[in-house]
């Protein structure tokens, strides 16, 4: 158990209620102020993304010249990162639905990623954001292949944890695409393949389109030099995979973040929901460009508290959230990318092995005091 959590003092029900109200007030304040500034921001990012994409594909068309290949691959990598993170992820959360612009409608948006947008909205917006860090409900905990929490019972399969993590990072977009398939529950017979037919058809259709575009059509346009755009596109997809894996795993799995059990989170109040989102998420410190490239998921805490507020607002409200956390003595987990990712890697490796001493690891499971109704479930 990390020191930040150890020093954590449980809040009284009155405190948790006023804590929730203070966060609600932040939300209301941003809602009342949403407007042209946010619209201009997302359109500027989209303009940059489209520009980078066209430039990247154009340069890769002439990728036989090494400088063009390098510049083209870099531009296309950035384009895919922006498309998935700051644009796709945030637009699909409905962060810009209030604009009434069909091109920015969360329900209609589709992204440059193997995962079909409608399946993403279900697995991410609904499953992950509602059940954040609840073991057994939030499939983002390990994506069904990794052991990311002591609450997942160890078995010899998990000896391969670091290898599975590396593979997931390399193929991240396909990992995300297969999210709702629940492969491990298929393997265990809990769900039947027949129930997943429609889902598979959707995944296949999207993967086929993405593959055709990046690995057939654009290379073909370069004629005999097809290998250059092919390699450039593959590299750009890989860069995006590694980057999004890194950012996303730093959002919920550095040391100090909590997982929860289903019992602990039964009958949660609004304040308790906020509290769980806070303890289950971690931020990354960095500059403005870093925040944009991370899709502002470097403000994972603010994103999880307010998933449908425009992401460009997270930076400014983080000051208030932090101040509230200090007052209520709730840990606010933030660190630079190197430190946070290092601790994620450490956790992946540590959890590959059976727990040395029950409840003595760095990330101890939550004590069971769910019956003590007057105390918060996650206080340790």
């Amino acid at each position, binding site marked *: 158990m990390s020191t930040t959590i150890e020093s954590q003092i449980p809040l009284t029900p009155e405190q948790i209620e006023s804590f929730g109200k203070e966060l609600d007030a932040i939300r209301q304040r941003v*809602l009342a102020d*949403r*407007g*042209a*500034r*946010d*619209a*201009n921001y997302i359109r500027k990012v*989209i*303009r940059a993304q*489209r*520009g980078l994409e*066209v430039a990247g594909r154009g340069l890769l068309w002439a990728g036989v010249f090494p400088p063009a290949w390098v510049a083209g691959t870099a531009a296309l990598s950035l384009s895919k990162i922006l498309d998935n993170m700051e644009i796709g992820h945030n637009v699909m959360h*409905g962060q810009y*639905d*209030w*604009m*009434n*612009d069909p*091109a920015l409608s969360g329900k209609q948006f*589709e*992204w*440059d990623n193997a995962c079909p*947008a409608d399946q993403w909205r279900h697995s991410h917006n609904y499953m992950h954001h509602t059940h954040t860090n609840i073991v057994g409900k939030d499939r983002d905990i390990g994506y069904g292949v990794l052991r990311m929490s002591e609450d997942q019972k160890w078995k010899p399969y998990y000896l391969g944890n670091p290898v599975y993590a590396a593979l997931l990072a390399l193929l991240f977009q396909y990992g995300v695409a297969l999210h709702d398939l629940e492969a491990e529950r298929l393997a265990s017979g809990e769900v039947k393949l027949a129930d997943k037919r429609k889902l598979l058809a959707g995944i296949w259709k999207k993967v086929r*389109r993405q593959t*055709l*575009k990046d690995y057939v*059509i*654009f290379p073909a346009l370069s004629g005999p030099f097809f290998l250059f755009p092919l390699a450039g596109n593959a590299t750009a997809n890989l860069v995006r995979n590694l980057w999004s894996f890194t950012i996303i795993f730093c959002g919920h799995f550095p040391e100090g973040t909590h997982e929860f059990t289903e019992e602990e989170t039964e009958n949660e109040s609004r304040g308790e929901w906020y509290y769980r989102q806070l303890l289950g998420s971690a931020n990354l410190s960095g500059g403005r460009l870093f925040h944009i490239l991370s899709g502002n998921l470097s403000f994972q805490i603010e994103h999880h508290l307010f998933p449908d507020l425009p992401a460009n607002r997270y930076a400014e409200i983080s000051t208030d959230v932090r101040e509230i956390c200090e007052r209520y003595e709730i840990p606010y987990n933030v660190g630079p990318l190197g430190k946070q990712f290092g601790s994620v890697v450490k956790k992946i490796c540590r959890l590959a092995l059976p727990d040395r001493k029950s409840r003595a690891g760095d990330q101890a499971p939550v004590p069971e005091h769910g019956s003590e109704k007057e105390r918060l479930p996650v206080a340790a």
Partner: protein
Amino acid sequence: MSPTATATAPSRLPGIRPQRLLDAIAGPHGLDRYLEQISPTLVIGECRAEVVGVEHGSEDSVTLSLRANRAWKGLRAGQFVQVAVEIDGVRHTRCYSPASPEGVSRELEITVKRHPDGLVSNFLVDHARRGMVLGLSQADGDFHLPEARPGSILLIGGGSGITPLMAILRTLCAEKHAGPIALIQYAPDPERTIYREELDRLAAENPNFTLTRSYTRAPGAGDLDGHFSPAHLPQADPDFTAAETFACGPPALLDAVRGTWANGLEQRLHVESFVPPTLLSDGEPGTGSIRFAGTNVEIENSGASILEQAEQAGVPAESGCRMGICHTCTCRKLSGSVKNLLTGEVSATPDEEIQLCVSTPLSDLVIDL
């Protein structure tokens, strides 16, 4: 689908259709999301229009000349379009009847009159500028000049309801229509008379066109005085029962006109309302609640239209005309009763689609929004 796309596609490869190739290349966002970065009106799958002229006819109205992009298919004189404008980041859509004649392919003219509380009308009157790009719909509506032109035509217009009639009149004059055309224009006073000079000119140039004006707040200034009354008809068009009649204006005018064209004359009458109906009669405002199931927002019924209440509660609701025409706001009502204020119909069955903008609650409601 689009000729532009086909024309710019690379040369044909065996077995590959250029349109599909282009879609695959531009996917998943689609070609328009790239074209609009060059110029917003370059899109091929969506109508948009550039403001090419701004004329302040009177202090509380503005006439905009628009040039639509190639996606727009033109209109029939009298039809309406939806115009979308972005104000402080939010896209708002309203219906306007262009006054421009048929056949002028991509040019259209709309007149916007300021409503005291109207967000869009105030914005356009104050801020419309040349070069501004607006969203546009294809023209729609049954209120238009028939393909086979009627022999004798009577037009009755009140306030800004003159605009679709102007489209009809301009079309007929341009075609050198031979039959008699009569127009009764209702306006408050000479200063607030839309298209005054052009109508005077058309009346002078076209002997078959009779213009009759009635001022509601300037007695003696016009040919007639006051609001519409059947007594106005003989002076404006002695043979009005034989004319194909087109009326557009506020609800009171249209009610009076409908009352006159009864007993078999109805089939010669075409009307278009310009103003949403007055809300709430027997629904008892301020009683009951509305729950929006998708967003889990619950509010007290204020008596306004469900659309307005949703917007006030911050529930994102799609909307268009806000007067029951375009069905953009159509939404599933999961339970409860509503009354359609246009038709008076009561919907009490669960799981019925209702038009939010013209529906008012009669009971507790659950809406799928």
